[in-house]
């Protein structure tokens, strides 16, 4: 393991971490889009544009999802075990 980086992080390690992070992000985006779409948009499409109700619903859905996600992430990273 050649540490040719003065900060001590290996190039390969950094690359692996970046890859994991990227996968996590992609997974988060996909799940968020899927959940909010299923929740907010009626399956019988009457028009191609998002109307105002769906817009508000998606705004709220994304906001809540993001909040919950960050909150749980903090809990898990701080405690190491979810407090139950």
């Amino acid at each position, binding site marked *: 393991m050649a540490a040719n980086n003065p900060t001590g992080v290996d190039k390969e390690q950094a690359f692996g971490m970046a890859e994991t992070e990227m996968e996590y992000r992609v997974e988060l985006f996909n799940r968020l889009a899927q959940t909010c779409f299923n929740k907010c948009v009626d399956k019988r499409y009457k028009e191609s544009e998002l109307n105002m109700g769906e817009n508000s*619903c998606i705004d709220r859905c994304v906001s809540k999802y993001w909040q919950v996600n960050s909150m749980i992430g903090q809990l898990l990273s701080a405690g190491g075990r979810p407090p139950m």
Partner: protein
Amino acid sequence: MASSNPETESNNGSSIAKEPEKPQIEAFRMPTMEEMRAQEVWNNCAVRSVASGVMGGGLGLMMGMFLGALDNPIMQEEMTGRQQFMYTMRQMGQRSWSSAKAFAVMGLIFSAAECVVEKARAKHDTTNTVVAGCVTGGTMSAKGDENCKKEYNVSFMGQDEV
């Protein structure tokens, strides 16, 4: 004859026309930032209600002009042609202005109420329209009631004095 191989097509619906009569389906493009902002303008409640009020005013103007022209037929003996014309014009103008105001207020209130209710419920339903109609009807009749009361009082009191 063109074969539609799913892997060779782009994944959002562009296809080769199979027969000459079928319309070409064009590829799906994601909306640009300008398009999204243009759509966001119409999501604003104030913009929508003002636009609706303006359209209602235009409609009221047209309707008032048309109905005002037919309102009181004037006698031939009293005025010359030009005076008849001016009289009819003034009457049409008054009628159309009052009608335009009424319709503009109605359109404004309906559109604003529907927008607010839909944003609050976050659902696209007919319930929004129903509630907005109720609010509009209530407002218009509340306004109308005052005028009716005043006219009624005046006529009533006039009869008392006599």
